[in-house]
């Protein structure tokens, strides 16, 4: 009754749906009306309800109020037409089949923000064993960045070389960075920086040896020709200019021959209903790498480095919450030395800053002979294949292990989204904050820890 009454008061009866209120007549006594007259049975004149169909009645007012929705339906109609065409023409079915079955050759676009070169896009073409034969795979790709940097790379691999358990891969590439930043070496370097350019080509061979279900040893050998130039020099064909920073070894050209080994002990447990998330367990990565400049250029002096690293990853479900709410913790200690009287080129020093470690800082913001990184992430699912993440990073670089101190840590924090696909993280979007400068946005494709 109340809405109908309000309708009447508002004088909106014309627009409103018909208001047919019950009109029971109150009686003033239990005696009721008096006979006669003889009552008229109205029901006798009513149509048979079983011959009158139900119908949704929509008033003019309701049509008017639905107008915005009707306009939106027009927008939807365009999409509807496109989706239906894609389905009925078989386009979607073919695409699904393509995704379900590993194709012989396929290409994937790549894009990133917040990495070494800022905004970068590229394309990688993959050839699978359906094209190359059992066990074989190859990729060929390139990228281009907003600052003019570019790269071209390729890799061919055989996961069971000659029928053995060994995996072999041969790769190489050419890279050109148009503009990189060099900050003073040391944990307390200020924000002033020099810009430099670099270009390098490399070729390498990787051998992967599984030592058990959870233990792997990966070794590799690599030759890399490296050129570092001032930005002014970058356009010249010969890199024989002077170093922008006279006392920092590494500017100029160098031919590095290096070899390395990485031992991984992975006792983490991944899986899940839809996405390959890591829920709990421990992983340990031990790395060793030695490289030496075989060009012995007088301009650069003797350059070499020996890098050792240890990284511990721990995944812990958060108590009292479903097990897919978990903490991912990481501690990485790295040290880079030069044997004898050699110098470590600045670009092989341990660095912090960038989307893989101290995410709130610029790429290679801190650089010295050693680095310590601590990362804590709280990951929780918001969808089958999406995680949200809150993170905090802390790190410091040092010349000697004795320098490590609590008050030397640089810290950042932030949050983001992770999209899982296939067997690892396919993409992530993060925002990181630091006391130093504006927030940094990171968008990247690829695995994280």
């Amino acid at each position, binding site marked *: 009754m109340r809405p109908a009454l309000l309708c009447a008061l508002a004088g909106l009866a014309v627009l409103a749906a018909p208001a047919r209120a019950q009109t029971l007549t109150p009686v003033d006594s239990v*005696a*009721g009306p008096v*006979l006669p007259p003889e009552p008229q049975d*109205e029901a006798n004149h009513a149509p048979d309800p079983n011959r009158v*169909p139900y119908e949704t009645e929509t008033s003019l007012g309701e049509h008017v*109020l639905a107008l915005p929705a009707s306009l939106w339906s027009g927008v939807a109609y365009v999409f509807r037409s496109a989706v*239906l065409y894609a389905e009925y023409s078989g386009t979607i079915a073919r695409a699904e089949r393509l995704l379900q079955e590993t194709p012989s050759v396929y290409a994937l676009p790549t894009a990133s923000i917040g990495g070494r070169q800022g905004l970068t896009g590229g394309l990688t073409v993959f050839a699978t064993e359906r094209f190359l034969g059992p066990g074989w795979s190859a990729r060929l790709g390139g990228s281009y960045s907003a600052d003019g940097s570019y790269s071209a790379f390729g890799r061919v691999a055989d996961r069971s070389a000659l029928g053995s358990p060994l995996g072999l891969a041969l790769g190489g590439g050419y890279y050109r960075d148009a503009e990189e930043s060099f900050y003073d070496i040391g944990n307390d370097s200020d924000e002033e920086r020099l810009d430099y350019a670099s270009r390098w080509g490399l070729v390498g061979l990787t051998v992967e040896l599984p030592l058990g279900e959870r233990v792997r040893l990966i070794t590799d050998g690599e030759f890399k020709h490296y050129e570092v130039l001032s930005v002014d020099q970058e356009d010249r064909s010969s890199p024989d200019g002077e170093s922008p920073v006279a006392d920092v070894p590494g500017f100029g050209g160098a031919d590095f021959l290096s070899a390395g080994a990485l031992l991984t002990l992975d006792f983490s447990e991944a899986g899940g209903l839809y996405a390959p998330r890591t829920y709990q367990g421990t992983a340990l990565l031990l790395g060793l790498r030695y490289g030496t400049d075989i060009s012995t250029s007088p301009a650069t002096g003797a350059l070499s480095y020996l890098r050792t690293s240890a990284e511990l990853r721990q995944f812990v479900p958060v108590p009292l919450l*479903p097990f897919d*709410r978990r903490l991912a913790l990481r501690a990485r200690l790295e040290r880079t030395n030069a044997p004898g009287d050699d110098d470590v080129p600045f670009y092989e020093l341990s660095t912090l800053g960038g989307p893989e470690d101290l995410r709130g800082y610029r790429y290679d913001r801190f650089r010295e002979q050693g680095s310590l990184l601590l990362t804590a992430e709280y990951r929780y699912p*918001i969808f089958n294949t999406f995680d949200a993440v809150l993170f905090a990073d802390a790190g410091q670089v040092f010349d000697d292990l004795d320098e490590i101190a609590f008050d030397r840590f640089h810290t950042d924090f932030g949050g983001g989204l992770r999209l899982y696909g296939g067997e690892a993280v396919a993409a992530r979007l993060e925002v990181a904050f630091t006391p130093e400068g504006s927030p940094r946005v990171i968008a990247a494709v690829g695995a994280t820890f």
Partner: protein
Amino acid sequence: MRSALFLSLLLLVGCASTKPYTTGPIKTFDPDDRDIPRPDDARENQYWDPIDRTFFYQIEKPLDLNWLGRKLGQGLGLAGPKEAQNVNTLDEVPNSSWFTQRHFYTPMTTEALRRGPNVTDGPDLTAWTVIAGKSEGRTRGFTIEDARGDRYVIKFDGPSFPELTSSAEVITTKLYYAAGYFVPQNTIAYFDPAILSLDPEAEVEIEGEERLMTEADLAAILDPQPRRADGKVRAMASKYVDGRPVGVWTFRGTRDDDPNDRVLHQHRRELRGLSVLGSWVNDPDRRNANTLAVYTTDVRAPGDTARYIRHYVLDMGSTLGANGSGTHVVQHGQEYLFDPRTMAYQTVTLGLHTKPWEFQPLVAFYPSVGYFTAKYFEPEDWVMVHPNPAYEYRTDRDGFWGAKRVMAFSEADIRAIVAEGQLTDPDAEEYVVQTLLARQEKIGRYWFGRVNPLDRFAVDARPLASGSTGTSRPLRLSFDDLAVTGGLEAAEASRYRWAVYYGGARLAEGTAEKPALDLPALPFSADPEAGVRHANREADRVLRVEIVTLRDGREPSPKTNVYLYFPLGGDPRLVGIERE
């Protein structure tokens, strides 16, 4: 000005009001079976509907100011929800091309429940001609014509889950049929592959393109199927429905080329209420593509033939524990597959908002049953994998309507129907029965708690007691307390507080220990011989009986108003039920 506009908006969408009873005959049939020209085929789609429901429709809803105004009105207590539009004054759905009253008011026999819609025992098993293939989609199979000339769609279980999909499809088909829906004749069939022959003109659709079906296509479908000891293969045979299929029907809007289709589908109670049955059997994939509109021919009498669209519910192979050829996962029925609102909420609450089922997302199950559990089932929270417009409009009255159909199945009924699934593992069969019973109980407890669960009312005038001084004959209004008949509440702990109103005056009141109200002498009579005064208008010969159910130690139930009409020279009739 703005406030006036807002008020107008609220009023505009909230002021529909109808008389809650009729003094004429009760509508028991909606005549949507009138002869119409054959409509065009409405092609199904697999992708647009989920996209539309998840994104476009969700944006469209608040853009419809009728919807928005009503929601605001509900929030302010000025308007109620939009009730279904094909409900008679007894709060029931008349029979139509969508629905037929079956197992609630008049219980079906066990044999009738077992048989369901079937008029045959399934396909003749002597010779099958394959006339079309189905190599894509969620289940593989083909279409055959048997020796009798009957056509069947033959579907197979996923090779990893024998008996799962076929049993689910047959069981749910019979449950839906008994509940009142039109469904195909689905049966389990064990056949010898040797009876198959391929029609030279049989076609199969691959990636949107049809081509002639080959023996290799047939082998690709058959080879993965497990064989019984006698070499026979299990399949689910779905008989072609009578009539000409003209595509799918939708859970929203009406069909433009069907003049009989006059009620917006989202406002049809049988579609809103289907959500409750769907929650019972965990049918989260009930979308347009799993429906069928059939141009049906009814010969009612010589020379009286009508052709119209009958509306079927199809593809029950993603119910109970089955999800196509695989199994459901814990998320199915618990939340939409993709819901930006949930994602945003999860993000903002940092994952601290948890759902019980998240603590144990992977559980062991019978391979022939799949993931089907009552443990995490909450009727009020059950959802499809994608939003369904009709389900979204469901009101408490719609939910109650669906729940009383769910509760109409006794344990014996359920056992009889589950047996039709022909699960070879008796433990698996028992598990299905127990899970259905447990989910049924949850549904009853929830929906019967939302609405006063009284139904199947009957009224009769009793003879005057000897020595009575009343001015009219006493009445007895009896009914079923569905919570009691469903075993959810104890009869001895239930009482019924009633009051009789005539117009605005309360004439009498009392509390009954049993679901039968003995109403006292009334102030008027339809009996001219009673020598008393009576009303001269129909509306003056209607009484309202307000009933509230009382359970020991609990809040009184919402009210139910029952309207009784006293026709001249006839027995009083039940003419309206109004549920709060």
